[in-house]
């Protein structure tokens, strides 16, 4: 009996304390309100619309009243050639980017590290990283101009006696074209991550290697690269988590209907079935949900793997462990 009342008053005390803390921090709660509203409206409310994946959307009836059609949208998914083609292209182009786009930033970072003139390094770094901050709309405009029939590349080709190439509409080389233009835009900025890692290498290691008579290549091979091994592993692992995103901005701005077979990816496909032709919202949401689930699994798996490799994880260190 006595014990119980002690426990009760204990709990009461705790509640009072919490209430006091809430009162004490009332301004902080008020500070959080706009963000909570914004996240609720723009992030949670659209999730309500996911039910359209199991419905036949009728604009007159709205989301809630549109009729349920079970798994029909998902059945269509596995038999729709357009979707299967987009799925295949997404995987192929992503893998090409993961594997082909992986080494250029490392090579660049090592090259930069070998430049001794700080000013030269800085100027080059600015040039190399700049395209990363230009939109794909502008980049695509420049690329189209460069590779068009009368563009600079073809002018050079014809002037040295070679045949004109139409890389912008040639299906057999277009994926490679996508990979190379992606490297052109992104590799310089990617190198910055490795340069930050190289800057963290203990300089005494280089001095020791020098005393041991190591030449330049040996220093790169035995000091620089092992020093950024962890960063290389994390970047490589994490790049797999984006396997479902083959680069919507890039492809959407560069491709055309003659390239759908090799370059139509899930994101461009979803856009087209949603806003062009006769829109089929339910099917589009089903495709989005399907890729969303794969995305989530990839993110969780590879985020976990990168933590094993010594990475920080995406959102760690936010809330203090108390």
């Amino acid at each position, binding site marked *: 009996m006595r014990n119980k009342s002690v426990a009760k008053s204990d709990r009461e005390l705790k509640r009072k304390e919490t209430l006091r803390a*809430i009162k004490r921090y009332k301004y902080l709660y008020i500070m959080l309100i706009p963000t909570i509203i*914004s996240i609720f409206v*723009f992030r949670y409310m659209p999730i309500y619309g996911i039910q359209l994946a199991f419905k036949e959307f009728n604009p007159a009836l709205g989301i809630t009243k549109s009729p349920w059609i079970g798994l029909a949208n998902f059945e269509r998914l596995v038999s729709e050639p357009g979707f299967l083609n987009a799925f295949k292209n997404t995987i192929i182009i992503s893998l090409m980017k993961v594997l082909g786009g992986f080494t250029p930033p490392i090579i660049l970072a090592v*090259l930069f590290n070998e430049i*001794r003139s700080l000013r030269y390094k800085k100027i080059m770094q600015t040039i190399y990283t700049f395209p990363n901050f230009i*939109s794909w709309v502008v980049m695509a405009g420049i690329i189209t101009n460069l590779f068009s029939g009368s563009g600079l590349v073809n002018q050079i080709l014809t002037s040295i006696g070679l045949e004109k190439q139409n890389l912008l509409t040639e299906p057999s080389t277009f994926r490679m074209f996508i990979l190379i233009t992606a490297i052109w835009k992104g590799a*310089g900025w990617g190198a910055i991550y490795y340069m930050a890692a190289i800057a963290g290498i203990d300089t005494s290691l280089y001095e020791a290697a020098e005393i041991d008579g190591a030449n330049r290549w040996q220093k790169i091979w035995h000091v620089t690269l092992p020093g950024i091994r962890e960063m290389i592993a994390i970047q490589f692992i994490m790049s797999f988590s984006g396997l479902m995103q083959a680069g919507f901005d890039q492809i959407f701005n560069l491709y055309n209907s003659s390239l759908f077979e090799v370059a139509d990816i899930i994101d461009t496909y979803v856009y087209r079935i949603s806003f062009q032709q006769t829109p089929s919202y339910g099917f589009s*949401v089903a495709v989005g949900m399907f890729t969303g689930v794969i995305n989530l699994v990839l993110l969780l798996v590879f985020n976990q793997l990168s933590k094993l490799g010594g990475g920080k994880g995406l959102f760690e260190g936010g809330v*203090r462990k108390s």
Partner: protein
Amino acid sequence: MRKKKLKRFTFTDFCIYAIVAILGFTVFYPLYNSVLISIVPQYEAIKHPFMLYPPKLDFSAYKFAFESTSVASGVFVSGMKVILGGALSMVLTLLTSYALTRPLPGRRLIYAFLLIPTYFSGGIIPNYLLIDQLGLMNTIWALILPSSVSFGTVVIFMRYFNSLPEELEESARLDGANDILILFKILIPLMKPIIATYFLYGAVANWNSWFDGLLYIRTASKMPIQTVLRNIIQESTISTMESTSGEEIAVYTEGVKMACLVIGMAPIMAFYPFLQKYFVTGITAGAVKG
């Protein structure tokens, strides 16, 4: 003690400098070339496809771009987006990350509430229907409000708040300062570099975004610059294909097209070389993945 030995500039050094320079040229020249095409008369651009400097200046392409296309209004809309959107998201990010690093009862719950939507999203159609239902369609708010808070940035700011020494706050509290005063008078001034960095990231993202404009804006004069550019590029490929003779071909010459593109990257071209260090700071401050 670090002794700097004077090293000889060897042949290997020369090769490294040369490789970096040649690759750098191939990265840089396409951008530079598009600037050149936009500032020379069209016949010069055709006569000299490989220009290193403008043989003759002619800014009529820019005049045309500003007078006869939606580029001017696009610059205005995107500028508004950069300023309004950037200010809004910086205020929300600071308030949220500050509050969540204080010992609030229930802060873990709020943190989880913000975290969960980073793993799920409604997707393009539910977002589209939501914007429609909220009555934001064809307004600038459709371009600003949905992206007002980024959870990733909030987490990075929380790490930063956590890394600041607590003594700073305690002494201020002894002097009678409250939470709000502490945030604005003591903590925010210490966070200038990270605020600058993330404001710049946001500004670049806001300036470069085009897809929201494509989805939510119908009136040409309300479109952000990148959406306007996209329409110009798409239209011009059609018009040059269709009209082999006649005046229509003069509507979107390569010069005008390039002038529009240069306008689309001008702010970044102008500021990036000087602000580069802030962009790089973000890498060391932030998570591993950019």
